[in-house]
């Protein structure tokens, strides 16, 4: 028994007919072909599927597509124009905040809300803020740096050096 839902994704309106049990992440990836949102687990643990729903970061594997009816979503594909990087994306690039890139879209979407609600977070606040997102590659140091970098840029401040600091 499919159900028709309407939602906005990255500013574009969609009306789709879905099974009530369809996970939002599958709607995004399979029906809308926005494959930048990833799946890393089946227990809501990894955060690779994080998107924004009405500006709040949510794990899209934990929400049914029908629950997104009438809502506005933003995925990694919507945060900047193709070929351009927003301050967070640039922060990740400049500070080597990604290796394999699989966790990266989720991290960026989570960090987007983090900085919207707390534009000038401490390292500790960032670590707790992204603790619902797993990264297996980077050891997190540079993800924290990337978010601090974006925070500075977005406030019009000079970000810290992006050269690696060795002891």
């Amino acid at each position, binding site marked *: 028994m499919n159900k028709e839902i309407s939602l906005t994704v990255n500013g574009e309106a969609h009306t789709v007919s879905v099974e009530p049990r369809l996970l939002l992440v599958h709607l995004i*990836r*399979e029906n809308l072909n926005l*494959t930048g949102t*990833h799946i890393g687990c089946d227990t809501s643990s990894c955060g690779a599927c994080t998107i924004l729903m009405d500006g709040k970061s949510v794990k899209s594997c934990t929400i049914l597509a029908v629950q997104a009816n009438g809502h506005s979503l933003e995925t990694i594909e919507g945060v*900047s124009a193709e070929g351009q990087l927003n301050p967070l994306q640039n922060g990740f690039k400049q500070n080597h905040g990604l290796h394999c890139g699989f966790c*990266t879209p989720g991290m960026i979407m989570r960090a987007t809300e983090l900085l919207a609600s707390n534009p000038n977070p401490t390292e500790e606040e*960032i670590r707790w803020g992204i603790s619902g997102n797993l990264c297996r*590659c980077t050891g997190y140091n540079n993800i924290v740096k990337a978010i601090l970098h974006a925070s500075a840029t977005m406030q019009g401040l000079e970000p810290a050096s992006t050269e690696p600091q*060795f002891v």
Partner: protein
Amino acid sequence: MPVQQCRAWNRLPPNPSLFNINNYQITIMIQCKTSKEISGMGHSMKRKEDGRFLQGKGNYIDDLKLPGMLYMDIVRSPYAYAKIKNIDIEAALKVPGVAAVVTGKDLEKYGLHWMPTLMSDTQMVLPTDTVMYQAQEVAAVIATSRYAARDGREAVRVEYEVMKPVIDAHKALDPDAPVLRTDKPGKKDNHIWHWEAGDKEKTDKVFAEADVVVKEHMHIPRIHVSSIETCGCVADYHKVDNHLTMHMTTQAPHAIRTVIALVAGHVGLTEEKVRVISPDIGGGFGGKVPVYPGYVIAIAVSFLVGKPVKWIEDRSENLQADSFARDYHITAEMAGTKDGKILATRFKVLADHGYTDASANPSKYPVGMFSICTGSYDYQTTYMEADAVYTNKPPGGVAYRCSFRVTEAVHAIERITDRFAFEIKKDPAELRMQNFIKKEDFPWHSPTGWIYDSGDYHAGLQKAMDVVDYYGLRKLQVQKRKEGKLMGIGISTFTEVVGAGPSKDFDILGIKMFDSAEIRVHPTGKAIARFGTKSQGQGHETTYAQIIAEVLGIPAENIQVEEGDTDTAPYGLGTYASRSTPTAGAAAAVAARKLVDKARKIAAYLLEVSEEDLDWEPGKFTVKGAPEKVKTIQEIVFAAYTNHPQGMQAGFEATHYYDPPNLTFPSGAYICVVEIDKETGAIDIKRFVAIDDCGHIINPMIVQGQVHGGLTQGLAPAMYEELLYDEAGNILNGTLMDYLVPTAIESPSWETGHVVTPSPHHPIGAKGVGESPTVGAPPAIANAIVDALSPYGITHMEIPITPFKIWKALHDRGVV
């Protein structure tokens, strides 16, 4: 059964004021030979591959959709050891969208129900009568959508007759243990192999006569790489031209093509009919080296139905069924003098391989490089023996970001070294300094036959001690102990062995472990370079370009790097065991040098001088004594297509298959400082300083990133991760809810640095770095924790060291 702790317990509020994080001078270690425009070695060039990943335009396996594609899901065994009485697929076939259900009996008709492992053991693809571990593949459901395939999976009814499994490796060789591998003719026990190195007689004698002998049993737990992307594939067979394109998450696409041809050649899939494409990989760490049954079933189904078949495992399947890592039970012993000279070591290993030996090791080394277990120390007497057994657990083991069992070896030697220091009441740093191999003694011949290429262990440890203010910390520790607080300092000074490897000793299924690079420079001076390796996040698209830029002087920005397509890339053995820089990176340098040789000939022709009259610096030739007479590499390349000397081949390309003369031996000195809360056992890592020696550094930013990531993957088994099974063989923590991959909260802020001793035999002096920290970190953490607990007579803790284990150890001793 150990109890897993809650994440949040494990980190106390930071109190850095207690620790003097001194402003150690930040050193500029790297001298760049090339300009920033060229960005050869030493430049922290930002990564070329980042753009697509940052914009959600990566190309991972599950992003691939082909017309008419079917989806596969897998029915798995709930039991560790059982006879299959019946598989009822009727209900499943009635599920809307389900196209087929495949069982072992179906595959048996084509001889595809079994496959060889990389260690020349055998493994079921699908069982025909018996399941050997929980979560083993039992049947596959093929459907028109992911959801229909899952519905079909739920509808398959399997009747089992449960048998008593062998779970404890220590009991696998008991006379009354059931023989598990009855499929192997004549097999009478669960023993797989025995392996030894060193000199038993001499070692026993030294031990018998030594003043001091220490001994500990340690278990290096069964863990899982758990890359955030799981494994999967799209098998795409075209009947019309009898051709298979296999898109799959593999770290070794070329080797996989050969394996597919070996397994399925008899049904017509010979090697020229198979193309393996490894797209962007969301982390590998060794877990994407093996061939899993899911891949083979997908190929078989695509072959039979002539349509593309997608199989993507979910996280729980990945944790429960894909290759584990480690699971070595080790008895380590050290003999020495009262004043701290190490005289000999002895190691005994029991390796639990699960149902089959599906390790990813070089063929000649079933125990991997475990015999590097003599470590960084100067003594010549050792003996090690290892025995492997079958149990009813998933097969393996793979590396988990380490070079073939080096982590197990390093844990054993670094823990037993600390144990020795504790026994004779000597400072563990001083004991190490006393026993290190000296820098002038390289190349150094180890008692188990390795030839360490280079190192300066004293400088590494000294630097780590200076950075962390070692003696200041020891004073602080005395004071804290007086206050009844638990503080510990742990050291690990490890030697790794990577870059497998020289063809005389190293092969996988007979294929020598060389690797390759092919460089083609286009007429306008821009290049494409292809490799037999496959990045899974290591940044090859950037670092390989930098190596070529360093030698040729073509800007790294203008060098496109491609890997992972067996139709276009030269044959190579893939990326694991930190081998990419030592092998394919070397191949790139040598291929680029061949191009410089050709460029010299063309330049001499263009400038009308002899070759000897030319000076080269990356990017241009000048005439000796007439520096205004210049030909840039771009002009020379253009001439190679437009105006090349008569008799010379046109074009500008080179290929090299690099057979390393030796392995490389990266090393490191790590110091970890912990505080432990007595009442709860909670561990707080206050400092972690990692000084690595990976030889010459190609891209400092990427090397540091690799070290950070590796350290967190070293922290993981030290304090969090272990796959746990009950007596019936049920996995107790088979999801990411309870298998504790560290988050940003558990992971401390790592401090990293380097000493540089270039590898003397590597064309660019590099050694490889991706795994050193995973190898070196666990004993540093364990040593720090044991050091904190040592006033209570505690000499060893089994990793993962959890707050509960600490609390229990203290409680058992009446401390709390």
